[in-house]
């Protein structure tokens, strides 16, 4: 690498730190972000520790670096879209100005390519689309892939039903779904402009369904809000900011990435078409699971609507949008379409695995590790002071991790809803590799965090 290249890299890292320095991205002690769409805490110190020149690989996809980079990217993308507080802007004018600050937007544009390459660049390696794709091959692949997805098991829904705490598990899934659900079709809206023939109008038809034909109560994001409200969950965007898994944010970011960059258009259509074509049975199965968990109280119209409308969206997206684009725009476009199909298939399976592992984890307390045991730990144990003013943060354990409380009492958060686990002095808890967790304390406490 040239000296020039190195300097450039350093400055990108510095620019990322300055971007995160924005008032609305400052840490906060509360584990939830209440009624403020602009507050999206970023941990500057951990961001500064990332080696941006070493992009994530598929096997590091569920990692702390992935969590941080994907949060950063989400803020970059979403500051391109309009958010206003549900109860009005009064009192949040400064946050509004800070979130959409032009200087911050310029920084966002500069750091975006680096963050995208870091967080999602592995897709180029992991997915290969080769050879000459004609119409027959394209349709065959779509049909086989859709068939496979719509006849597969639904492991997430099953895991919810079989979870130790099914309610907590269902709500954790809904927390992940909120990433898209509360802003549904925002990425899609990015390709409504321009001029690209009849396919533009086909995309618009899907879009107006997503937007409930202009009727607020029928808008998919409104239906999602009703679903959350019916089970007592909060409905403002990013209330559960700290509890998004890295893979969930990555899937959401993927759609912004391939729409923000217009050369990603064909990948976007491929990925969107596959999801639209496979959503119907997935959502039908989710209705069954949610009914089982919440009984009659849950408002499943969001799921029911998708179980119906996406049968049409799937057909429209494949036969009126994807195939006509493939015919008209040739092999390079077709390879992009197929690449999108494959990329979302890979991302979805990685995200499923991440969520399944989080749902399967029910932390329990055990006696704290002894000093002798700690001495055997591979890395130096980290001693952390916690108190009511400490910034709350969640992280992904990059190795099996031991959290041992030496004084006071701490809460271990491991899902977006439900009570955290209380760990008292003399006790500890093990966080398996890849799991998301956060620590909080109402009064002064000391914990020792070590790898196992």
């Amino acid at each position: 690498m040239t000296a020039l290249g190195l300097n450039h890299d350093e400055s990108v890292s510095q620019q990322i730190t300055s971007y995160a320095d924005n008032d609305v991205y400052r840490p906060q002690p509360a584990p939830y972000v209440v009624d403020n769409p602009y507050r999206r805490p970023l941990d500057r110190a951990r961001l500064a520790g990332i080696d941006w020149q070493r992009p994530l690989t598929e096997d590091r996809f569920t990692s702390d670096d992935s969590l941080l980079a994907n949060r950063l990217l989400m803020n970059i993308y979403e500051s391109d879209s309009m958010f206003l507080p549900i109860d009005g802007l009064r009192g949040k004018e400064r946050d509004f100005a800070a979130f959409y600050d032009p200087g911050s937007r310029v920084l966002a544009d500069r750091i975006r390519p680096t963050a995208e390459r870091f967080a999602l660049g592995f897709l180029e390696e992991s997915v290969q689309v080769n050879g000459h794709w004609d119409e027959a091959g394209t349709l065959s692949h779509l049909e086989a892939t859709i068939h496979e997805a719509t006849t597969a098991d639904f492991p997430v829904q099953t895991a919810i039903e079989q979870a130790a705490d099914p309610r907590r598990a269902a709500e954790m899934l809904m927390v992940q779904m909120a990433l898209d659900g509360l802003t549904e079709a925002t990425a899609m809206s990015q390709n409504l402009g321009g001029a690209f023939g009849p396919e533009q109008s086909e995309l618009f038809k899907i879009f107006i369904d997503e937007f409930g034909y202009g009727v607020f109560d029928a808008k998919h994001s409104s239906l999602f809000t009703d679903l959350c409200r019916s089970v007592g969950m909060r409905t403002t965007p990013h209330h559960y900011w700290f509890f998004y898994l890295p893979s969930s944010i990555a899937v959401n970011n993927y759609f912004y990435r391939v729409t923000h960059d217009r050369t990603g258009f064909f990948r976007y259509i491929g990925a969107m078409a596959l999801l639209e074509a496979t959503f119907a049975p997935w959502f039908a199965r989710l209705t069954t699971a949610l009914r089982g968990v919440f009984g009659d109280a849950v408002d499943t119209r969001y799921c029911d609507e998708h179980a119906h409308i996406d049968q049409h969206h799937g057909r429209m997206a494949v036969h009126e949008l994807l195939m006509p684009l493939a015919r008209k725009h040739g092999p390079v476009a077709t390879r992009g379409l197929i690449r999108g199909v494959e990329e979302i298939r890979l991302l979805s399976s990685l995200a499923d695995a991440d969520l399944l592992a989080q749902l399967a984890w029910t932390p329990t307390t055990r006696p704290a590790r002894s000093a002798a045991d700690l001495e055997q730990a591979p890395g130096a144990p980290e001693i952390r002071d916690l108190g009511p003013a400490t910034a709350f943060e969640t992280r992904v354990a990059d190795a099996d991790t031991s959290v041992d409380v030496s004084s006071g009492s701490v809460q271990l958060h491991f899902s977006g809803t439900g009570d955290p686990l209380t760990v008292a002095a003399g006790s500890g808890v093990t966080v398996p590799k890849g799991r998301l967790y956060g620590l909080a304390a109402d009064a002064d406490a000391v914990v020792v965090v070590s790898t196992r």
Partner: protein
Amino acid sequence: MSRSIRVELNWPQENTVIVGDRHFFAYDRSGAVHVIASRCAHRGGPLHLGRIEDGKLRCPWHGNTFRVDRLCARGVAVVQRGSKVIAYLPVTDPDADESPAVVHSIVLAE
């Protein structure tokens, strides 16, 4: 509209597809697997038994050479994730029984 023939290869254990009298071989070009029809455009020679030198594949029958990048670009449609390779072979005769066989066989073009 006719569909293509879908085959799944577990690369590199499986490197060859045989459909009727057609023969296809898999070729790894810096990590990207291509599935190429093994039939020389000259006299139908077995391209998979040719050697590759300087980016060119030489047909073992009459020595005609073909640029590998062009052969790859003309390869059949492939998606690949790790060792799992899915290929779509064109249908030549819609009435014929074209059930494909996926096997391991000698491939010298590598």
